[in-house]
Structure formats: C-alpha cells, structure tokens
C-alpha cells in the first residue's frame, strides 16, 4: 500500500482523535495534508461535526436490522461450510488462493520477454479455415483433415500422440516417448452452430464456440504453451508454473499460468474481449497491457485501439459453454449476431432503429430457433420473421 493511500485510510481514526484533542504531531500533519488536498475534504470534516448530520446518520442506521442480517449471513455460512470446524486443509486451500495471484503478478513482472514474441501464424489463414468448413474438423500438422462428430468414440494415433475422439470432444494424452522434432500444430475448426471441446496434452480444457478455430501444439515440449484462436473459446488452463499458457488472437494475447477464462475474438466484431473467471491473466495488445483479476474483463476496440479493463458479471460472458446465453440490457444487434452463429442463420434488419433496442434474459441454445426468437419478441419491441435460413428483424 503506498503512503498516500495508507494515510487516507487512517483519516477516520485521526478525526476522532482530533475531536478528542488527542492527536500527536504526525497525525496532525496527516490530517492537515488531507484537508489541504481539496475543499471537499474541509467540508466533509465540518459536516462530521454537525449535530444535524449525526442525527440523520443515526436515523439511517436505525433502519438497518442487524439481527436479521446476522441470521441471513449465519444461514449462508452454515450452508457453505456445514462442518465449520477449524480445518488445516481449508486454511491451506485459501492460503494457496492468496499466494497464487501474488505469484502470477510477480511472474508477469519478471518474465516480460515471453509476452512479446510474435506468433508465427497467419490469422487470416485461420479465419479462412473457419469459412471453409461446414462440419467440425480437425486439421493435423501434415494437412490431413478429420471430420468430427460423424462417428462415435474411436482411438487413433497421429504424431505419436493418442487422440481419443468422442462425439463432441477430443482428448490428447502425452506419450512421453516422443522426442522434440519441432512443435507440431493441429487446428480444430467449428462451423456455425457447433460447439466443440478439447483437452490438450497438458490437461488444459478448451471449449470452442461456433464459427471458431484454434491452432494448438499436439505436445507441449517447449517452455511456452502457445495456442492461436479466432472466434471464441473458454479455457480451463492446467496449472504449470514453469510454462505460461498464451492464447494469441489477432489483436490481443492472454497469458496465464493456471486459471479459467474466456476469450472472444470474432473477425467481424468490433471488439475482442478476455474475461477472467478464476486465477490471474495478463492481457497484451500492440500498445497496451494489463493484468486481470477474477471478475474482470479486458476489452480491446479494434477501431479506437483502446484497451479497457472493466468489472463484469462473468456469467454473462461464459454461460455459452453451458449451452445458454445470459443477456443483461444487451443491444439487439449483439444478441442476434450471437444467435446467428449458434443457429447458422443470417440476420437482416428491415428497420435500423431496432438495433438500439435492448434485451435482457436467458436463451437456451438447444431450444428450437423459433422458440428463442419468440422469447426475444415477447420481451422487446421487435418483430422477427424466419424466412428460409434468414432472420428478418423489424419494429412491431
């Protein structure tokens, strides 16, 4: 904590002492410094001494029912921790959570070099692959194309890595006999309306949203774990303190050691967003970088090239991997763009004014598209018609 902030935090105690004429010289100096910083501070100090304000504060406080509040809190605590006895394991678990963010922060400060490496791939090529495939596909390092989702579980080997294929997911396991022949990359591509999940060789789990592609190493033998993404994916990165896991998108890179976060980088969107659920990540763009804490989101605007950090409700940005989208006061254009990717439809607006309308609600992916559109119609002032594979949006 820097000195300025620490002094400001001491002000309430110093004020009370001042009212009691008990301040020492150092405290008097801190108080005077604070008072001299702004007229607002002087006004606040005077207000605190006025009886009228004290009375109104007391009245406000009397409206608070502490007893009820305690019962609610107590009930919640008992619900979370029914054992509620001192547990060393629990203490260690929480200690680890505090320590890890510190480690991550210091790691990022000390190892800046790894963040600057330019990705050796072309994002245009990756984006084109998304356009080219109408089925979920895996493209191996030697160019072989495997269509996924068609058959059930089958096991086959490629590049000495065993791949286990389920209907909607793939899992890699490391065969340690493989020695380093240069990193081999596979690319997983999803078309519109398909979500796919994959477990990488280090145990990292990736959910790939529709119209997306991720290029990843079949084995993590070097000292970094680099993957390349276009579209949207949610990552649960397996912890490996010796190897940072970096997601490269066209405009932004996200680096983590072991954590859970979402990256959204669709080529036709104006923004690229990285949302952190757990742990810590470092986000870099060409001109900026910042570190995220859980509940934060880094948002890069391609037009203004501005990188912004904001506090958000993570659920709104990660629920897609559980088959639903939660919207809070989101504009219709964004809502329908997301839906169009899910259901593989086009969107056209017969009235541009409707784009400004806002929608709040939860939409389930596995509903029939007509149901989903109907929900939006009921909640807003839009009229949506489904004509062949196209959504037409108009005002009611």
């Amino acid at each position, binding site marked *: 904590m820097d000195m300025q902030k620490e002094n*400001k935090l001491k002000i309430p105690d110093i004020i*009370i002492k001042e009212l*009691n004429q008990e301040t020492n010289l150092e405290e008097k100096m801190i108080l005077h410094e604070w008072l001299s910083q702004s007229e607002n501070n002087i006004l606040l100090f005077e207000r605190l001494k006025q*009886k009228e304000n004290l*009375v109104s504060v007391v009245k406000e406080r009397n*409206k608070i029912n*502490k007893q009820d509040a305690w019962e609610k809190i107590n009930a919640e605590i008992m619900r979370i921790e029914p054992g509620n006895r001192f547990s060393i394991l629990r203490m260690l678990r929480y200690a680890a959570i505090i320590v890890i963010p510190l480690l991550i922060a210091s790691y990022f400060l000390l190892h800046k070099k790894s963040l600057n490496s330019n990705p050796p791939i072309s994002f245009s090529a990756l984006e084109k692959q998304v356009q080219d495939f109408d089925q979920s596909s895996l493209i191996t390092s030697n160019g072989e194309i495997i269509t996924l989702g068609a058959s059930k579980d089958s096991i086959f080997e490629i590049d000495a890595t065993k791949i286990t294929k389920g209907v909607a997911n793939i899992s890699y396991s490391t065969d340690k006999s493989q020695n380093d022949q240069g990193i081999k990359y596979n690319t997983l591509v999803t078309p519109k309306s398909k979500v796919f999940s994959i477990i990488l060789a280090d145990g990292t789990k990736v959910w790939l949203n529709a119209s997306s592609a991720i290029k990843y190493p079949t084995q993590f033998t070097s000292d970094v774990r680099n993957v390349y993404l276009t579209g949207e994916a949610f990552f649960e990165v397996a912890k490996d303190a010796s190897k940072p896991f970096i997601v490269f998108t066209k405009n932004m890179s996200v680096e983590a050691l072991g954590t859970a976060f979402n990256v959204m980088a669709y080529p036709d969107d104006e923004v690229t967003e990285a949302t952190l659920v757990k742990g810590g990540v470092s986000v870099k763009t060409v001109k900026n970088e910042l570190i995220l804490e859980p509940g934060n989101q880094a948002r890069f605007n391609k037009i203004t090239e501005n990188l912004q950090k904001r*506090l958000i409700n993570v659920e709104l940005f990660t629920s897609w991997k559980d088959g639903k989208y939660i919207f809070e006061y989101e504009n219709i254009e964004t809502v329908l763009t997301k839906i169009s990717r899910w259901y593989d439809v086009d969107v056209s607006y017969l009235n541009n004014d409707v784009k400004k309308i806002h929608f709040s609600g939860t939409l389930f992916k596995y509903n029939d598209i007509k149901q989903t559109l109907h929900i939006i119609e009921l909640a807003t002032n839009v009229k949506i018609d489904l004509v062949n594979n196209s959504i037409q949006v108009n005002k009611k």
Partner: protein
Amino acid sequence: METEILTKLSKGDKTAFKYVFDMYYSSICLFIKKYNFDIEQAEDIAQEVFIKIWEKKLIFKNSLAFKAYLYQTAKNLALNVLQHEAVKKRYQEQFSYNLESEDFFFQTFIEQDSYRLILQVVDKLNPRAKEVLYLNLEGLKNQEIANQLGISINTVRAHKVSAYKFLKMNLRDLVLLILFLLFR
C-alpha cells in the same frame, strides 16, 4: 481492533466474525448506499461482503489492512452490481461524481468510517442513557422522552447528565454537546 480478533477471524472463529460484523455492518451498508442504492439493496450487498470476508479467511497484518480490504470489497461488489453503464452514466450526469473513482471511494469511506467511530463512542453509553441521547438528538423534549420511555422526567435528566459526562471525556469537540447545554 486487536490483532487477536484478526488472527481468530482468519482461522474461522465465528465469535471473531460476529465481532467485526457488529462493528462494521451498519457503516458498510451506508457506505454502499452512497453508490446509488436504496437501503434494502445496500444491505443485500453488505451481507455478501461479509460472507466473502468469512469465506476468504485472509490473514491481515493489522486492523488498517482489514479495514481497507473490507471497504474495497464493498466498493467492488457495489460497482459489480451497478455494471449497467446506463445507470452509472445517469448518476454521474446528475451528481457529477465518478462512482468508480478513487476520490469518491476515499470521500465516502472517510465519511462513513468516521461516523462509525463517533457512534462507537456513543454506543458505549449505558443503554438507557443512549436511548435518551438519541431521542434528545431527534429533538424530543424531556417530557416527551419521559413519556416515550416510560420513566420519570428526573430520570431523563439524570441520564442526560451521565451521557454528557461520558461524551465530554470521549468526544470533547463534538458540537452536539452544545445541544445538552441548550436543553438543560
């Protein structure tokens, strides 16, 4: 606040937790209320703050560190709920404060925590004297206080005297003392 309480708190001692709850709950509610909430919403968020404090069981090196963490968490949760840009913008336009700014945080923190400490002293009065004091502050006359509390007017005066003596020792400069003199 004693280090003992902080240590116990980090170990999940519920008595220590109730102690900090009693000490800070009301102030945290009013602090959050300043972020443009009504009292019910503020209480809900404040309860979440305390639950979070309980869950995290962090180790604080002193009470200042604890206080900082408590109010910062309250700020973060409050802003989290206020995520709608539209709501924030309207508030900013109306009151020209930036709710997310550090300045606003410190102003609000200093205000609420100071009241907390002032009232903490008042809270130490014996319950009856406190009741009399609060009613007095609200503007009731001695007879009205006597009627409301079901005691004699002499008892009311006696309570005022003891309250006055107590506060004189503990909050000398507070203007409210003048009130006593006016009503004697």
